[in-house]
């Protein structure tokens, strides 16, 4: 798609950081408030898609290559399955939450029934890994489809 008028571009540039921060907030507080890796990742991916629509795929193609996105996605996926393997090594069973109640990183014990940012155990880490994967994955789909249908027109 070719880019849109400059008004749309400036508005997109203004709103993109806000969308991204909101999405990252959803990812980071996945274990406290409703949301999590998938939902936050989808929000950030929609912000990126907004940029792709506003500025046109040629601009986006120059900025980010599909290869880097699939690398990011593989890293996110490896982080997620790495945490699961760590659970196997340290916690005795595949996917066990070995950080909970151990007062290491993110492992503080929730006091009087209320968890806070630091008590999620492996949950926040998994949220970050999945969030990264969903951002890279969904944006890769949007980008590849845009480039494919774009090639058709001109």
């Amino acid at each position, binding site marked *: 798609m070719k880019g849109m008028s400059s008004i749309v571009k400036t508005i997109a540039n203004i709103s993109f950081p806000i969308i991204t921060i909101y999405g990252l907030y959803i990812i980071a507080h996945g274990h406290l408030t409703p949301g*999590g890796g998938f939902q936050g990742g989808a929000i950030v991916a929609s912000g990126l898609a907004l940029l792709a629509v506003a500025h046109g795929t040629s601009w986006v193609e120059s900025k980010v290559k599909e290869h880097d996105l699939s690398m990011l996605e593989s890293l996110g996926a490896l982080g997620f399955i790495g945490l699961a393997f760590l659970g196997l090594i340290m916690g005795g069973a595949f996917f066990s939450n070995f950080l909970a109640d151990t007062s290491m990183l993110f492992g503080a014990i929730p006091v009087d*029934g*209320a968890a806070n940012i630091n008590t999620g155990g492996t949950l926040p880490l998994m949220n970050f890994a999945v969030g990264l994967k969903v951002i890279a994955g969904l944006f890769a789909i949007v980008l590849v*489809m845009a480039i*494919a249908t774009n090639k058709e027109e001109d």
Partner: protein
Amino acid sequence: MIANIPYLAVAGLIIIGLYTLLFKKNLIKMVIGITILESGVNLFLITLGYRMGSVAPIFTGNADNPVMSYPVPQALTLTSIVIGVAVLALMLTLVIHIYRHHGSLHVSKLGGDDQ
């Protein structure tokens, strides 16, 4: 009967999805039909976990936790929605390719070629 209205809504969604799938000739409409069918099944999963007068299962730390709806169906629906997105992306990719080959989205292009 009134208590089962949500399940009838689920039945309605699934029937609409199936109708679109079976009777529409355009490929994009078939994909839309599958998405409607999928949202019907998701709605059914969600309605299973509700308890009358319950709130979302978020703990706020005050001792008297109110009656909470079930967390498991909501987790299953999350998975089902992501699967729906994945399947939708793949189906649309294949529809784009079919359009490139045949120049039309009519389902007759898919005829089983038992030549």
